[in-house]
């Protein structure tokens, strides 16, 4: 059985769902962050898959590589997001002595 686009899409969907569940249900701030990163990965995988399996025959390489470029941007944003989120986690921990997202119920600290 050859590997087609659908395989990658379903794989991405499953990875995304696992990430979504983690982001929703994990108690620990770092756990939530791990879920979000996993979702990013799923989306990236889909992007790359789409760029590998083009829809139109007359797409140039540069056009098909838009997916890759987008992935690069996503990774950049993910890195920035991770840095800020972990800084936030440190700050919350310093002030509230917990990184349990359930207990971060105030909009201030």
């Amino acid at each position, binding site marked *: 059985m050859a590997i087609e686009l659908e395989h990658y899409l379903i794989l991405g969907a499953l990875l995304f769902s696992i990430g979504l569940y983690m982001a929703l249900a994990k108690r620990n701030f770092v756990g939530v962050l791990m879920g979000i990163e996993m979702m990013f990965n799923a989306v990236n995988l889909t992007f790359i898959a789409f760029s590998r399996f083009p829809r139109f025959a007359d797409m140039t390489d540069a056009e098909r590589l838009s997916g890759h470029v987008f992935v690069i941007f996503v990774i950049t944003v993910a890195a920035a997001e991770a840095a800020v989120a972990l800084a936030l986690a440190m700050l919350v921990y*310093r002030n509230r*002595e917990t990184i349990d997202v359930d207990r971060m119920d105030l909009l201030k600290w």
Partner: protein
Amino acid sequence: MSMKTEPFVVNIGPQHPSTHGVFRMRLTLDGERIIDADMVIGYLHRSMEKLAEERSYTQNIPFTDRTDYVAAMTGNLAYVLAVEKLCGIEPPERASWLRVIMSELQRFASHSMAVGVFANDCGTWQTPVMHMFREREKILDLFEMACGARLTTNYMRIGGVSRDVPPEFRPALRKLLDELPMRMGEYEDLLLENEIIVARSRGIGVLTPEVAINCSLSGPMLRGSGVAWDIRKADPYCVYDKLEFDICVGTDGDAYDRFLVRLAEMRQSIHILEQCLEMMPEGPVHSQITTATAQPGGQPSAPLTIRVPAGEAYGRIESPRGELGFYIVSDGGPAPYRFHIRSPSYINLTPLRELAIGATVADAIVILGSIDIVVGEIDR
């Protein structure tokens, strides 16, 4: 940082590459920063002061080797000087010169080890200490020539030294003295000018002279803080008053200065030894006042027992680590009534806690290295 992290307690020692024996620092850390420090000692405690109360004055000399086993000769010397002070014995002149030679050789050996180990604590992978050991070995060879032992010499006697040096001692010492200044130049170039050692030790563990005096620090610790105080100058014992040498003083009071002072003192020791080699007279090496008895070989020897009048004496010398004092109380009996060792390594640890707090773990190791402890002398 105001980060509220869990305090992290680390035991540096008792078995650790950088505690120079069985010494333990209990550090409470916040990240790499030390927020509290405590020292736990006594792993090498042999209760020498108690043991000495049951042995005769002569039998106690070997104990003094084993306090500061890196500088046994000066340990011997301080003890015999205290007893001689108590009895009023004047050793013959050649014995005094020999004592000075031995204690300066010992100072060189001890400082070279201290300097090498300090560089080791700064993170050189054994290289300086191995080079320093090369010179130390040659000095220990000389000790072996003089008294048959290398580390625990047991050379000094009350009223003299155990025996005169053999005739080949003099040329051997001459040869060594010709070599040492060149080696010292090497060490100064390699270690003193080393960028990383400077970065690691300057500004670390700063002691002002007021604090240093108040904490009763002595030796290179005190001189590193900028106080020109050397018992060899202040209260010359043996023949130091006939010798020409300088007091080596630091100006910043940090770990680097203590290291600096030790290196400079090694040069002064060479200078002193040169003078000794020239000026040392011939003559007996045992005092006639003590009951010197002839050994079967015909050589006069130091007495095995002496009678010490009741009283007390505090004899102090400048050992490589600082003021080594022996406080001896006699009740007129064959053994000392009270035998107290004022050991510089131990008292130099007084400001350790304050020096360590606020430093990093790596700094604490450097600070400990710059104090130059010998655990045998701390615990006694």
